[in-house]
């Protein structure tokens, strides 16, 4: 049995779901008989259960959690299946003609797995050959895991694994890390010296001089050595600090730069499906803000925590060494203080969550209304929207007030506790200093109590205690923030492209443009089939019109042809070879696309036309622009081809942008051209110009054209009519118009009626 530890481990540990399949299921899988399975996790009374539905080539079976065979239905008896979708439950029903032979419930969690089962079942019922590429176990666990993989970075283990992985990024820079680490450790240890020297000065200079044990000259000499030592420690501290800051901050930048490069280049390897499931803003923020936050963690967080731990341990040892009873008085409450800081952190997290929610609600208000400002104004809802915003803004203030009330109460309380400890140290320390002085004065002994110098050093060390406690207390939050960012970044890096080049993929140089679809089945979500066994054959140079109601699968056909996705079943051949045998990059160089919403990049018109062929000469650019009916309007712009078009080309009209995108396609000289509603978003006059440009563009190429206005497809050599993911009609315009009650004829007639209606209105 093929093992998928990651998904399986996740389903078991995170979802708490049993991953131990009943023995019968395991046996079927081992024997290669199991084609698919899914959990029937809801009983008829909507209680959770762990029943399993499985499919083999001969039967559909149901097993209980203990492995008891509850149902076994011969496949030959089943004629069709049906799924009724509810909010959280779905009902699968299997029929023998109209007779119900099996029905059961399952939750959304099993939806994808059940979708696979039903897909395979339908293939079997239609006697189609199965092209199952994975084991049933893989399919099952991937289907349950899929929403997590798509939603977030969960495929990299627990928090500690992520921290280790983050730290592994430092390996290429290990010399710098060692240098920074040693500098940080030395800086911390050196920081402990001034307090000791201060105490030494009191006990060995000031006190002996005061009692007449030292002459002024000797006292000054020892003082001079001490002050030099003090100065040296200060210089050393700042020196180590300088090394640490410089080394680690630059190191952080290097790691962040590496991550940004890795993430961005990996993004370009990922399939279109990945981008469909993510928000653009989220991806941008992962490349920018999240890598920046990781820089902060690597440059400062790691070292801060390390130095604080060293400092706290060093201080505790020094205090216990100086005077263990007083030392215990200071060190014993430390765990309680750390615990209270962490507890406070938890409380703050809860409050911050509320703040974040309020903040989201307020910003939702902005992202709702600002893009829709025309609607707001047209419905005169400006004042209502202002009130809505004010309410949410007030909610934010209320929540943030709560946050400030909490932390402004906690920290003074904590400081008060530390002050109490300091007072306690004075309370118990000073009498012991006095005992020492009295004993020394009486007997000359130094064994009793605490020397004044030790006490002074003790008090100075005490003041150094607060900062490392604070840093360690905040450590959990710091690590949490860093790992959250790391999850988001690693999630991109860990995502495998769904469309991949085969090892022996052929770099294609010159295509003829012959295209064949054979029994192509495709679904974006693995559940709802968009294409249900489409087959057609296109000769090189043919112009194909793709027609059908919206949602019928036209654009999906072109997406598959562009190999943005791979079909789940069936195959696509170009020039007689399976599409996946070609190297993606070289294949797409032979492909041109003109979309409904042309996309121009920030830059000059020249750069945009040349996007697909940066080496094109100026004369080629002008020729392409002329052919695209763009040359004239470009020259009307004061800066001609050097005009900067702004983000997404917003400085140009829709028709102008479209003509530039056509010029771009012409310059590319593709063998296969896809026109997806290229003229639907423009006025009639502009459409005419674009149509002229397209007529020039399509010559000598294999063209797939999707058009809302069917009249623009009359020039097509053939028209493919798609409905509900199936090819329902195929032929020339005149042939299709001759089919009584044909789908194409109906669509043309509807459009003609609509045009007549529009003309009547205008009259």
């Amino acid at each position, binding site marked *: 049995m093929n093992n998928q530890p990651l998904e399986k481990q996740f389903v078991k540990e995170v979802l708490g779901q049993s991953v131990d399949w009943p023995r019968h299921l395991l046996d079927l899988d081992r024997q290669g008989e199991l084609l698919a399975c899914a959990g029937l996790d809801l009983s008829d009374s909507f*209680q959770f259960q762990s029943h399993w539905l499985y499919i083999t080539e001969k039967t559909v079976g149901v097993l209980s959690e203990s492995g008891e065979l509850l149902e076994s239905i011969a496949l030959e008896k089943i004629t069709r299946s049906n799924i009724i979708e509810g909010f959280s439950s779905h009902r699968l029903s299997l029929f023998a003609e109209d007779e119900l032979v099996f029905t059961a419930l399952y939750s959304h969690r099993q939806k994808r797995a059940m979708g696979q089962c039903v897909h395979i079942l339908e293939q079997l019922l239609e006697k189609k050959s199965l092209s199952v590429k994975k084991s049933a176990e893989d399919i099952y666990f991937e289907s349950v895991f899929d929403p997590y993989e798509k939603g977030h970075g969960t495929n990299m283990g627990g928090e500690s694994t992520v921290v280790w992985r983050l730290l592994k990024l430092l390996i290429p820079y290990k010399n710098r890390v060692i240098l920074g680490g040693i500098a940080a450790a030395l800086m911390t240890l050196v920081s402990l010296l001034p307090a000791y020297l201060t105490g030494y000065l009191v006990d060995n200079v000031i006190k002996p001089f005061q009692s007449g044990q030292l002459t002024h000259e000797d006292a000054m000499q020892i003082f001079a050595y001490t002050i030099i030592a003090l100065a040296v420690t200060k210089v050393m501290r700042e020196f180590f600090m300088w090394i640490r800051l410089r080394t680690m901050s630059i190191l952080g930048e290097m790691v962040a730069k590496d991550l940004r490069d890795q993430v961005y280049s990996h993004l370009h390897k990922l399939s279109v499906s990945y981008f469909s499931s993510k928000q653009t803003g989220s991806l941008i923020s992962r490349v920018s803000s999240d890598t920046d936050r990781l820089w902060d963690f690597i440059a400062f967080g790691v070292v801060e925590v390390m130095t604080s731990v060293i400092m706290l341990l060093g201080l505790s040892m020094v205090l216990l060494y100086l005077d263990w009873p007083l030392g215990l008085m200071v060190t014993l409450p430390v765990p309680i203080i750390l615990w209270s800081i962490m507890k406070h952190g938890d409380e703050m997290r809860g409050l911050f969550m509320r703040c974040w929610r309020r903040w989201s609600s307020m910003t939702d208000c902005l992202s709702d209304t600002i893009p829709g400002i025309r609607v707001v104004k047209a419905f005169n809802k400006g004042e209502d929207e202002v009130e809505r915003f004010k309410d949410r803004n007030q909610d934010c203030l209320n929540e943030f007030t709560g946050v400030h009330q909490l932390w402004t109460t906690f920290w003074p309380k904590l400081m008060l506790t530390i002050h109490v400890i300091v007072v306690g140290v004075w309370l118990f320390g000073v009498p012991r200093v006095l005992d020492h002085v009295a004993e020394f004065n009486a007997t000359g002994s130094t064994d009793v109590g605490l020397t004044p110098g030790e006490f002074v050093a003790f008090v100075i060390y005490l003041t150094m205690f607060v900062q490392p406690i604070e840093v360690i207390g905040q450590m959990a939050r710091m690590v949490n923030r860093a790992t959250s960012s790391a999850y988001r970044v690693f999630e991109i890096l860990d995502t495998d492209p769904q469309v991949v080049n085969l090892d022996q993929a052929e770099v294609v140089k010159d295509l003829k443009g012959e295209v064949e679809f054979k029994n192509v089945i495709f679904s974006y979500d693995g559940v709802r089939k968009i294409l249900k066994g489409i087959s057609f054959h296109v000769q090189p140079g043919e112009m194909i019109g793709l027609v059908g109601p919206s949602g019928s699968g036209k654009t999906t056909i072109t997406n598959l042809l562009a190999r943005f996705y791979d079909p789940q079943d069936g195959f696509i051949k170009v020039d007689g070879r399976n599409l996946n045998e070609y190297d993606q990059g070289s294949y797409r160089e032979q492909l041109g696309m003109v979309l409904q919403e042309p996309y121009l990049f920030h830059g000059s018109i020249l750069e945009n036309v040349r996007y697909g062929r940066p080496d094109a000469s100026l004369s080629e650019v002008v020729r392409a622009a002329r052919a695209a009916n763009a040359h004239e309007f470009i020259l009307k712009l004061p800066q001609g081809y050097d005009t900067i078009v702004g983000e997404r080309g917003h400085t140009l009209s829709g028709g102008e942008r479209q003509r530039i995108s056509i010029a771009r396609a012409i310059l590319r000289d593709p063998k296969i051209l896809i026109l997806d509603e290229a003229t639907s978003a423009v006025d009639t006059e502009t459409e005419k110009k674009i149509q002229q440009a397209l007529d020039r563009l399509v010559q000598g190429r294999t063209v797939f054209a999707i058009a809302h206005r069917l009249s623009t497809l009359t020039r097509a050599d053939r028209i493919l009519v798609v409905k509900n993911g199936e090819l329902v009609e195929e032929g020339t315009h005149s042939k299709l118009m001759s089919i009584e009650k044909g789908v194409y004829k109906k669509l043309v007639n509807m459009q003609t009626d609509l045009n007549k209606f529009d003309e009547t209105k205008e009259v």
Partner: protein
Amino acid sequence: MSDGKLEREGMPSREDLSRQVEFVEGRGLRLKHNDHWVWVTAKASFPWTHPEEFISLVNEEAEELLMVESLEDHVLEVRKALKRSLAEAGFCFEILKITGVEERLDLREWQVETQSGPRVFHTKVSHWPTVLDNGQVFVRDLHGDIYRIIDPESLDSKSQERLSALADF
């Protein structure tokens, strides 16, 4: 549309609906449509705010065959039949107790007890529960399952405390 009731051509009127709708145990709801029995599903147009009004009866192709404006207008058998069908289509997990809410793996993990049994599910950290005007709280997990808290104030104090950071009720 007549008399406040939406009707489709060839559909039974309110008065004779009792003879044309029935719930078959283990099979579901069926409707007599153009003299033929058709298996249908009842879908509430406003499932959370007005669950017993504007009930749409749809066939397997998701085409609406009949709209029932209000269950109250119909006799007991019809109401029972429609409610049975609604109960299945409108089923969602009712949270009875929240035993834990944690942020884990950059997701929010909910450990809950529902009327169907204990369950662990996840949402994105940026996805907050929805609170309706009638006080009901809804959470949709990454798989698409919906969890409902009908009356948050009836939850135990720990559950309320856990929910309070995530929703106002």
